[in-house]
């Protein structure tokens, strides 16, 4: 469904991605694991159109979306739950959800907002509250709900469990599994290797801007994945 072929993305002179290739199959959960600074967020941002790759191509459902603007990519069916959530703190929960539907022009937006409140009852109780007053877990739910408002076929999630209490992390992963069961494909960046390997159909290891492993959970011992996801592997360090 999503094919990333040999992309190079740089910040000025620093090459953060040095030829990354990977693919996300329809209906699956694909995880991208790797140590801090490996380029996971850069990969997400490049797919979402927020960074332009210097080289390589990105194809979504057989259409080339390389270098297209973010609005176009959202409309083609890819939505992002950004790192650190980035909800609009001084906007109400309700308005935050409306921003998620910004790229849509149909008249079912309010119905979808109601559906989000059914799915996330904790947001329902806080509809008119400013998003900045929510707890970390609630803000993460809001960030997910906001992305879903775009009716994505593929959901990009950048470290959704970051900084959350273990119970909330469980809930986030339950939501990820539910969404996937309903047919949404998911491309997930995670630091929580244990949880990620439990939900993933496929996973990739990214180290210093290069993919160093791609396969299914079970192809590698969890200990080795943890080792390489936190510290990087011996050859590359």
């Amino acid at each position: 469904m999503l094919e990333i072929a040999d992309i190079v993305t740089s910040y000025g002179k620093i090459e953060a991605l040095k030829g990354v290739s990977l693919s996300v199959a329809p209906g699956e959960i694909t995880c991208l694991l790797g140590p801090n600074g490996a380029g996971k967020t850069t990969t997400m941002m490049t797919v979402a159109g927020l960074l332009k790759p210097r080289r390589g191509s990105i194809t979504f459902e057989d259409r080339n979306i390389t270098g297209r603007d973010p609005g176009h990519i959202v409309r083609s069916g890819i939505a992002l739950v950004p790192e650190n959530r980035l909800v609009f703190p001084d906007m109400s929960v309700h308005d935050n959800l409306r921003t998620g539907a910004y790229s849509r022009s149909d008249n079912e937006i309010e119905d979808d907002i109601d559906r989000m409140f059914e799915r996330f009852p904790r947001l329902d109780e806080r509809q008119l509250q400013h998003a900045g007053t929510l707890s970390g877990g609630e803000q993460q739910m809001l960030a997910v709900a906001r992305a879903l408002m775009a009716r994505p076929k593929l959901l990009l999630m950048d470290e959704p469990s970051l900084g959350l209490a273990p119970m909330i992390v469980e809930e986030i992963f339950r939501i990820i599994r539910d969404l996937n069961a309903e047919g949404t494909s998911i491309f997930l960046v995670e630091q929580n290797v244990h949880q990620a390997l439990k939900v993933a159909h496929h996973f990739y290891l990214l180290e210093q801007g290069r993919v160093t492993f791609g396969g299914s959970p079970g192809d590698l011992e969890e200990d080795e994945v943890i080792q390489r996801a936190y510290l990087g592997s011996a050859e590359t360090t």
Partner: protein
Amino acid sequence: MGSGYALLAIGFTLIFGVLRRLNLSYGPSIMVGVFFGTFLFIQFQAGWYTVLVGTVLGAAIAGAYVERLCFWAIKKGAAVASMVSSFAVWMQLEEGVTIAFPDRTYEFPALGDFELIELAGLSVRQEHVIMLGIAAILVFALHQLLYRTRFGLAVRAVSEDPNAALFMGVNTGRVIFLAFILASAIGGIAGYFIMATEEVITPKFGLQATFKGLIAMMLGGMGSVPGAIAGGLLLGVVEKQAEWYAGAVWRDIAAFMLLFAFLIVRPGGLLAQHTAARDLAALRRV
């Protein structure tokens, strides 16, 4: 007068709120619009509504020019460069108008011959009552636009977090451009009504408009629309009182004294909200 300042401050607030940058050329853009209005009046004896439309159009076009040159062309993170270049464009606009209108002082058409009217025991100029009404209508319309439309949603999203707005697929560059034009157009309306009561116009009006709008915005609390209204009205009242009791030269002095007093006593402004601290921090970075 106060409602004119309130409108000036709202335009300022819109730009500062969305961009977190100060546009010093805001007043001069309005001045360009006002001169265009005067030109229509002198050349074609245009009626009041043509002059008003001309003023607003002129201000909006000048505002669009300023945005492309000082804000769009200069990348984010370079707030100082934007402010300095908006100052340079200020000089440019002022010189341009001086060359096009070499007599410097021109007549601006009054709204009409109005008499003083009695209102709750006070005698007030009818123009001021009309201006207050127009300001109220505009504020209401702006509120509807910001809180009831898709464009308003985008403006609010960009002003809170331009990156997150981009993630939602908002074309932030276009939203900023349109907000800039909107702010200049509101400034144009303010400029028209201020001029229609003053009845003479010089290129120095740009300086006046920038300062009065800026002071009113700071009095009210940076980036807050209700604050801009309150600050504008307060500034108008204080200036009028100073003029009445101490003479015309005291008008501007009183305005600055008021600002200093506020900066010491209540630096967040009249309607200091929880975001005021963030706004001030943004201003310091500017």
